[in-house]
Every structure is written in structure tokens, then in C-alpha cells.
């Protein structure tokens, strides 16, 4: 005799994006790749537009030296890139690493890692602190190598 069993409770499944589908992360990876190609092959430093904040106040703005950092890093001049703008060099390295890793993820069919909401807040606070620390460095050190 087979005893009646209670129906199994509905399973709670977390939403997971499809593994190999191209989506929003891939667009950001493409933007990062585009920034690398521009920094590597387009002579953006020849434009030489002066920063208005720097011209008026004599002090660099928070993003001063960002273009130089991208270009120097794209040409493999790591130390010089960090001297121009440390956060800009880190940002460029992170963006290009993200593009490469996302390409690997798509090819390998892996799922995109989900960042927990609590850790996202922590990263945001770290980012804001790094932004102001980088600006303070630019004020104290001055622009350029």
C-alpha cells in the first residue's frame, strides 16, 4: 500500500540570467574595449584641450590626467600611467580586465557573478573614498610625471 504523501512545496528558485546570452555586461565590455582601442590607436593626446578647472584655479580637477593615464597604460607604460592619475590607471586596468574576463565568460558559457547588495554598498563607499583620495593626491603631487 502506498501512503498518501503531501505534495512537495514549490521550490524557490533564484532568478539566474541565461548563461551564454549577450546582455548588458557585454555592452559595457564592448565600451571598455572601445576605450582601449581609442587610447591605443587614436592620437587623443594631440588634441591637447586644457582643463578649464585647472586653467581657472591652478589646481587639477578630480579627472585631470585621466586621458593620459588611459593612453599610457594602453601603451604599456604602467608607472607613468599611475603618475598621471592613479585612480584613472586603476579604472582603465579594471575596465579592460572586465572586458577580457567577460569574453572568457561568454566563450566558456559561465554565469555572470551576482554581487550581494550588502557588498555593493561597501564597494560604493570604498569608491567614493578612493575618488577623494585620488583628488587629494593630484592636488599634493601635481599633474603629470
Amino acid at each position: 500500500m502506498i501512503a498518501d504523501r503531501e505534495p512537495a512545496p514549490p521550490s524557490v528558485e533564484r532568478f539566474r540570467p541565461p548563461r551564454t546570452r549577450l546582455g548588458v555586461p557585454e555592452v559595457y565590455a564592448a565600451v571598455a574595449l572601445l576605450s582601449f582601442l581609442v587610447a591605443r590607436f587614436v592620437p587623443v593626446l594631440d588634441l591637447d584641450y586644457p582643463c578649464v578647472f585647472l586653467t581657472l584655479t591652478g589646481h587639477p580637477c578630480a579627472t585631470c590626467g585621466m586621458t593620459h593615464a588611459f593612453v599610457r597604460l594602453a601603451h604599456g607604460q604602467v608607472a607613468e600611467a599611475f603618475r598621471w592619475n592613479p585612480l584613472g590607471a586603476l579604472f582603465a586596468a579594471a575596465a579592460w580586465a572586465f572586458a577580457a574576463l567577460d569574453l572568457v565568460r561568454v566563450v566558456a558559457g559561465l554565469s555572470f557573478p551576482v554581487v550581494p547588495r550588502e557588498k555593493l554598498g561597501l564597494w560604493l563607499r570604498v569608491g567614493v573614498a578612493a575618488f577623494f583620495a585620488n583628488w587629494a593626491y593630484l592636488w599634493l603631487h601635481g599633474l603629470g610625471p
Partner: protein
Amino acid sequence: MLARCARCQGTFTTDHYGRQRCPHCGSDLVLADPNAPQPTVPAEGAGSAPPEGGPPLGAPPPPSGGWAPLPPPPPAPGEVPSPFAERARRGFFSSFFETWKLASVEPQAFFARVRTDQLASAVLFGVLASWVGSAVAALFGWLGGAAWMGAVRQAMQGIPGERSQILERLAVAMGGGATLIRVVLAPVFAVVFIFVGAGILHLFLLLFRGGARGFHATLTVMAYSSGVYLLSAVPVCGGVVAPIWQAVILVIGLAAVHRCSMGKSAGAVLVPLLLCVCCACLAGFALAGAIATALGHLQGGVSNL
């Protein structure tokens, strides 16, 4: 018991049925009691139940009046696709302009109900509108700029130094080749603008604790609000009006789509925008100073003749 918000899909624990507020996104929701008696079904003809998710966006309001029992309080309105997401059924141009009108003129109602999971349609809408607007603006700029750049070039002959170089670069930037490049690359710039802008907005929303429904919702608002860049095609004032109008839509739309306060969305939109506006104003003053100096030299040259 464990409950799930129909709006943000976040789960939370509660000890009672009925009306309550989601702790994640702040939206009001009704948790139905399974032991409560079922409501009586009204007689046929006395009234018909509304379609799930409410009437489609852009549809005329249902007729009111008539003799019928009062309906139960309506459920929280569900999400419906934008007209542009249904362009295969509605027709491309009619759905495009219907979406443009809803997103630009009625952002509160539109973004409170539009589906946020149809990103391809939203981004396509924003890119197309931006592309058309910037292409027409580039052509107008080329036609109009060719006339007065000749006079500016004459003035540049008397100006030594950096200001002359700035004007020389401006002349190159307004040439035919540069205009063609701008038209061809406009969709790429539009995609970058929408995605990078959405990323910055969402970061600031998270800083203000306002991005409850996730990045897709922010990207949807950013993409549909970029439709106002179609106004860039209007000579002279279009390029000035469009960014201001988009900022207004973003403030209203982000508050509606994330169910957060208008103050949070205004902070997320205006703080980065103020930084950009300050830099743009300073750059504008610098450019205006260079042009004024050039015109001064031109007048001096004319009076010396």
C-alpha cells in the same frame, strides 16, 4: 510568513495579511488572505474585469458610469510593454511617436507602468531618436557654420597664441569631413552615452539609497528619456532644450520606476549633472572669450582700413 513583492520581486517576512508596504522598494501591496471568502462574481454584462496589468499604454481610458456594483479596489497596476516594444503589431512610426509622447509628456504615468525587462526595445528607441536628432543637427551646423567660419578665419590671422589654435580646431570640427564622421558615429556615441549615463545614474541612486528595482529599471528610464534628443533636430534651441528636458524626465522617471522619493532621484540626476554643467559653462565662457577676442581683432582691423 514569507511574502514576495510583485513589484521588485524582493522577499520579506510579515505576520499579517492585507495592505502593507514592501521594505525593499516601498510600494504598497495587498497580501490576500487565502482563508477569506472569495468575492462574488458580478453578473454578466454588469461589468467586465480589466485585463491583467491594466489597459495597454497609450490606450484611451475606459468608459465610466453605468449601473453596477462598485468594483473591489484595483490591484497594483502591473507592468505593460511600451508601444515601441510592440512595434511589430502597432507599426514602426506610430509606435515610435506614441512612445516618444508618453515618455516625454507623461513620464510619471509611463515609467510607473512600463516593463523594465525589454531593454533591447528601450535602447533601440533611444539610439534611433538620438541618431536622427544629432544627424540633422550636424547637417545644420555644417551648413550654418560654413558661412561664419570664413569671417572667423580672417580674424584669426591677427591673433597669435593659444586662442587662435582653439578657433582653428573649431573650424576643423565644423568641416564637412568631421560632420560626416559625427553622423556615422552618432549611434555608437548614443549607445555609449545611454549605458555610461545609466551606470553613473545608478551609482548615484545607490548612494542615495534609491535604486530598489535594479539596474535594468535605471537603464530603461535612461534609454526612453534619450528620445527627447530628437529635438536636437530643431535648429538653435533644440540642442539646449533637449538636455534640460531629459533631466526633468529622468528625475520624474527614476522616482516612478524605482518607487523612491523625488528627492532621491533629483539628487542622483542633478549632482552629476551639476558637475557637468559647471564644466560646460566654464568651457563655454572660455570659448566665448576667445571668440570675443577674435571679433575685437576683426573690428580693429576694419577700423584701421
